[in-house]
């Protein structure tokens, strides 16, 4: 995975991209991701653990995110909370995907599509 180029991961699945971009800002644990997603995209259905950990597993295996120590003390309720953040590669992939989407959005065909809705 060391020689991976960000391009080979594109295009990212929408939820993968969302989570990657959220983790680029700060380290979050599972429920933190769920909350951040709900805040950022309120019209989306809540993220469920089955999907969430499938994505986390995928991003971890691809080397796009990694586990980090807890940035702050957690309540001692014996619940396992692991924090994740993006790797350098992950940040690169996120940026590449964002670029790709920007290019896509800037395309006249897309703009026309958006124009029609008004």
């Amino acid at each position, binding site marked *: 995975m060391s020689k991976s180029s960000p391009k080979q991961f594109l295009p990212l699945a929408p939820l993968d991209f969302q989570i990657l971009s959220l983790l680029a800002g700060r380290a979050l644990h599972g429920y933190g991701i769920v909350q951040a997603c709900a805040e950022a995209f309120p019209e989306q259905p809540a993220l469920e653990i089955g999907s969430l*950990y499938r994505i986390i597993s995928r991003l971890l295996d691809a080397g796009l995110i990694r586990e980090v120590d807890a940035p702050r003390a957690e309540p001692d309720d014996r619940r396992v909370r692991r924090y994740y953040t993006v790797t350098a590669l992950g940040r690169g992939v996120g940026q590449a995907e964002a670029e790709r989407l920007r290019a896509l959005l800037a395309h006249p065909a897309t703009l026309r599509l958006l124009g029609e809705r008004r």
Partner: protein
Amino acid sequence: MSGPRLVAWLIRLYPAEFRQRFGAEMLATYLDQRDAAPTLRRTLATLGNLLLSLPAVHLEARRARRPAHPIRRTSSMGSFLSELRQVSRALAKQPGFAAVAILTLALGIGANTAVFSVLNSVVLAPLPYDQPEQLVRLYTASRQEPELRQFLTALDLLDVREQSGAFTDLGTLYTYRETGGDLTPAGEQPRRIRVMDVSAGYFKALRATPLLGRTFTPEEEHPAVPHLVLSYRLWKEVANGDPNIIGRTIPLNGRECEVIGVMRPSFRDVAGEDVAAWLPANLERSGSNSRYNHYLSAIARLKPGVTLAQAQARVSAVMARNAAWFPQTNRDRTMRVLPLLDDTVGESRGSVYVLMGAAGLVLLIACLNVANLFLARSLGQSRDVAIRTALGANRTRLIRQRLSESLLVAVAGGAAGSLVAFWGVKLLLSVSPTSLARAEEVGFDPVLLGFALATTVLTGLLFGAVPAWRASRVDPTEVLHEGARGNTGGRGSRRVRDVLVAGQVAVAVILLIGAGVLMKSFVALQRVELGFSAERVETFEVNLPAARYGRPERRLQFHEQFGRRLTELPGVERVGAVSWLPANGNYHIWGVEYRDSAGAAQSTGAQIRVVEGDLFETLGVPLLRGRSFSAGDRLDTNGVALINQSLAQKAYGARDPLGEAFQTGGRSWRVIGVVGDIAVEANGTRYPQVYLSHAQFAGNRNWSLSYVVRSAGSAEAVIGPARAALAALDPALVLHRPRPLDDVVARHRARERFTLLLMATFAAVALSLAAVGVYGVLAYAVTQRVHEIGVRMALGARPGQVRGAVLRHGLLIAAIGMGAGLVAAVGLSRALERLVFGVSPRDPLVFLTVVLVLGAVVLAAGYLPARRATRVQPLEALRGE
């Protein structure tokens, strides 16, 4: 089961690597989510998502294990995954469809797997012994009644053991009595355990070796050899698993018994799990063993190479020789050799097979329903598919998409079905009668999960294939020509759906009739006249150990004293005791020799009961003639007896039986009275009976007595004071198995109740599924025919006519289904014949009721679509074009 446990259970279904990495975290995240919003919806959303993600995660895990295809998206697995994603998204858009399909499958698969688990453990799984197919059970029968399964005499068994040469080992068991022993460990409360008298060959025939010590040898097959083999459980309980137990003694029935062996934890007695210890059987050719004394059960292991038929022939040869040598006893006597497995399962086989068939029908109805749903869905989408085909979409890909869609639903249904099955087995066991043979061995078998999944996948392919094949064959131009009016799916496919629903109705009819017949039979069973009143009567057993109560006077004195103390307890109205409780099965069938009206000697079988105290008054049994036992009937006076009405009629007919003398048990008795019949079985069966006074009988034999106590208040309240009264007389005695007399009767009806309960559940599921099916078809037909209905109404059709047309459609389907179902039910009624009591499996009233109920349900299911049809606005319907 709580949300977190459900979530944890579902997480357990994930691949091991995934689970170990994320399992704890997933649960923690769910708990955090739930803390924020503790609603049922929250948990359901998580559960649904876990189920839907399950197949994908498994596929991904498999791909990860096979690093040969590292390229993403281009591998076929990758495209399959993206397809699955696409499909699950499409399904998520129609949650109603997915939910109904998955729920339907879960019910069908779950019920099927649960019942199959029971069947598997009870009927199909081998006995827990080495090479169980070689094991047989032996019974006495007679030339006149070759199907009998009577107890054996020790002498016949010894002859067969020594002369037949058919068996490597033959073991006897004393199952005749509910053989119990009172355990009186020092410093502990005495208690009664189930003890089995077995011969030396018993453990050898089962190839069961002890964990410690040894089992019995033929030298120990004598009366009162105080040697004891303990079950593993009893060893743990009374000796704390002491490895040096061998050679120590344990007080049992007032006797110090030397422990010579401890069985392994896996060993299970043929007579039941609860057998706690074994004593050597008495197989002496003298003493109490005679060719008259039938009391033994026996098992044996066939010699290698000897078939069942050959063994039967050799045993019959020995018995034929005995018939010649001992004509007085053995003239008509035969011995049967039956496979042990058949025998162990016995009567429950019938009901288990019927339930298995019913579960299969539920699965069938579920599949029909889902097939119908998918067909409707594919019709709804065929326009879409046609357009995509016209635009050049890959046809195999379209079919594959359909297949993966149905597969996905099937897998989700299978997973949910496994949950239903898991609880179903628990539920089945919690309501199952103790009489369901070997029920203790039933468990949720992982192999059956495989069975459920196989059913699922097969179902998925089956109902996925037809719509997929259809969709691919549609000619795009044809579909598009039908215009914006929407696709009616064509007459052909509508007819297919009608047939599917008719099939559901037919299956529902079969199940409803089955449930109806069983219900009627159960009601008949409840209403049956037992000949006694069990209301507010408590029962318990008291056994006097022979070692301390060897003298008859002692036993007599004890029971009289104890009976008096019971009568004096507050709230107690009447107290009696009997050697065998009523409605508790046949017991002690002895030969009775009497003289008929011409003075000729005759004999018949009668069940012997020994009576103490006010038995008949306590149970409300009428004394029809003569007198009951009195204080004057003592050990040293002439033997007197009461007989029941059945025996009076059988032996004496219209004659007055009072004063007549008869012989039984080697003594002569004079009839002093006639009492009403008491049922010997819970289904009301009567049998000739003889009642002997314990005061006279106690001189001969020491039988334990079951007390019956009628109180003014609740039956159970008497247990505590009765126990105290017993302890005050003799602290080493056990008040055994206290239970209300009602429970004794109910226990024998438990199998019927169990079968009925399951059948009723199946019928209810079938009825709801059929209703859903009818509703679905009619509602769909109405939406598809909005245009036509609009035209009709524009042309002046009244709402009643429109409604009638829709309902007629529904009733036509139902009528065809019911017709087919009724024919099938008549054909299948034979399966129920052996299970029902007091009702014909083709009971016309049940058939009629089922037709009416189903008709009403179909009308109700059709009402909503019919009403919707009348709400069609002609103008809008036409403008829709």
